[in-house]
């Protein structure tokens, strides 16, 4: 299946006075995608979405939908609909009138309007709620009204601005999978703006990470997590241990990073294709670090006994956090640097294995660290 481009941002820049909210962003989004715009607050993701909806005009660049430039088309004439952060359900209208408003404005006749409103309400599991007023609904139900109201117009693209931020934790998780299922069912392209990386990873088929108006990386959730292209992305998505170093060896199937932050170099089983001796950063996720008791099993009793070319580092557990499903260990290594390791509690006694002030070995596979050039 070849993906068809539905939206193209071409060198979009948006300035508010002297502030650059969006800085020369070019991005293509395919038909049927669940696309996430991810970034910290103030990174320009919402501005990008609002330009797509028509509430802001780009200072420079073009936005194309189905190949047509929509930069100058007012919001009420664009084939996109939006679910607002506050849901923006009209408080003086019933649920059915809210959902039917877009059709009413478009001059759709009463019988068809009623039928489509019914359909849309069923789609978001609000059948029978049509006569209610918004103040008789819970936050989650109001959001469903906003969803139905946008979907009933059968837009080419549905925009969602931080749709889950106002919901409580349990509901948020339930809505994640429900939104993903809904998108699958209606087949409309969804673009969601969020600052919550879990949300983006859980729902999106592709994410764009933004920072200070710049597009940092566009990739699938797993690529973002496992193959970040910059320190910002590695740090923003999930947790990471970052070591600054120098690329000492760089061959097609092997690389070594010399770092002063660790007692031993970092060995990699792949090339980096960076300039030799360049400054690089090694990003290592906590769950990719294994903990061993010293002198037990495969773990060597001292550093000198460790096999060469392997990533093994001694340390001391300084802090641990028990989270039920897993435990987080903050390990101090020679030089005082703290390294975070994550360990799943596989059995019910696992969390008792390691404790405070216990000397341990840390090890990780040579393919685990990501080497970042910027």
């Amino acid at each position, binding site marked *: 299946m070849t993906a068809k481009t539905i939206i193209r941002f071409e060198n979009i820049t948006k300035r508010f006075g002297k502030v650059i909210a969006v800085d020369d962003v070019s991005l293509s989004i395919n038909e049927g995608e669940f696309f996430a715009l991810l970034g910290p607050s103030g990174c320009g993701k919402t501005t990008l979405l609002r330009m797509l*909806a*028509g*509430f802001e005009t780009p200072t420079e660049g073009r936005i194309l939908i189905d190949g047509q430039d929509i930069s100058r088309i*007012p*919001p*009420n*004439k664009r084939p*996109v*609909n*939006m679910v*607002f*952060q*506050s849901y*923006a359900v*009209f*408080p*003086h209208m019933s649920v059915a009138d809210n959902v039917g*408003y*877009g059709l009413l*404005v*478009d001059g759709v006749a009463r019988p068809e309007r009623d039928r489509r409103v019914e359909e849309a309400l069923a789609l978001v599991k609000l059948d029978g709620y049509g006569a209610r007023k918004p103040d008789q609904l819970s936050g989650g139900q109001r959001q469903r009204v*906003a969803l139905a*109201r*946008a979907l009933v*117009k059968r837009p080419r693209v549905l925009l969602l601005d931080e749709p889950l931020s106002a919901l409580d934790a349990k509901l948020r998780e339930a809505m994640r999978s429900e939104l993903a299922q809904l998108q699958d069912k209606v087949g409309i392209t969804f673009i969601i703006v969020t600052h919550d990386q879990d949300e983006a990873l859980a729902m999106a088929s592709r994410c764009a990470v933004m920072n200070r108006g710049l597009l940092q990386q566009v990739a699938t959730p797993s690529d973002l997590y496992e193959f970040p292209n910059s320190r910002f992305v590695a740090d923003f998505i999930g947790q990471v241990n970052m070591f600054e170093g120098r690329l000492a060896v760089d061959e097609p199937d092997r690389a070594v990073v010399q770092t002063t932050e660790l007692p031993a170099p970092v060995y990699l089983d792949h090339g980096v294709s960076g300039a030799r001796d360049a400054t690089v950063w090694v990003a290592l996720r906590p769950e990719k670090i294994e903990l061993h008791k010293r002198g037990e099993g495969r773990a060597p009793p001292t550093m000198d006994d460790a096999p060469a070319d392997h990533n093994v580092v001694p340390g001391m557990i300084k802090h641990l956090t028990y989270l039920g499903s897993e435990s987080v260990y903050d390990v101090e290594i020679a030089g005082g640097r703290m390294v975070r390791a994550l360990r799943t509690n596989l059995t019910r006694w696992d969390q008792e294995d390691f404790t405070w002030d216990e000397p341990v070995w840390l090890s990780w596979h040579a393919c685990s660290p990501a080497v970042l050039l910027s």
Partner: protein
Amino acid sequence: MAQSPTKSAPGPLEYLRRWPLRLWLTAVLVYLYAPLISLMVFSFNKSRATIVWRGFTLDWYGKAFTDSDLVIAFANSLTIAAVSTIVSTVLGALTALLLWRFRFPLKTIFEGALGLPIVVPEICMGVAMLVFFTQVMPWPTNLAWPLNLGAIIISHISFSFSFVAIVVRGRLASFNRELEEAAKDLGAGEWRVFWDVLVPHMAPGLLAGALLAFTLSLDDFVITFFTSGPDTTTFPILVYSMVRFSPTPEVNAASTILIVLTVGLTAFALWISGGDVVRAEAGD
């Protein structure tokens, strides 16, 4: 066994169930309403004198309804109030929208000036109106009814529209701009957005403002006194002259009708707005 709620001791915050606050509340209610109630009671008094009770009668109401001066003054007052309410509500709402929606030079000065009719002493406003309608824009005196009320209507609008503007402005402050964007997103143009989203949100403020304007106009004495002529007597001015020459319960009867009318109107407005008016007047 749980004690029945009526017999339990008052809770720590149930001040209303302790005697000091009840006493205070009663005192306040008496202070507020005793004059009004005595006015109404004496409208049914059989005596000509307004202070000694001589038995029940409806004669004064009959008299009030047949007193052509009183009926004309009443009709004048209601006409002035109705016209000035409509005009000042529209004008006030537009002013509120302007202040809420747009930024323009000298906006803060404009906004401050809007409060002037409220803070300037009424007597000054009255004299100003008198000077204005004699020196600057003389209002013709020989016009047919209701055009002869024009000067009074204009002066009433000039002070009541700022009340409307301030109330509506307060209401607009709580408007969620995303509602407007949502309507546009769903295909509505500016005009539809205004009528479908903005006006319904403003409605309680409009109603509260209109009520304010109506009552302000209906009972205004000072400003009206300076702008009315012999043919354009309003109810408050007539009552004033009646009380000065021969105070009879007829005045009480006419006043009672006016009170019932305004209370009824307020109750009606509260009822159709479901209580939003009170919230709007409180600036919510």
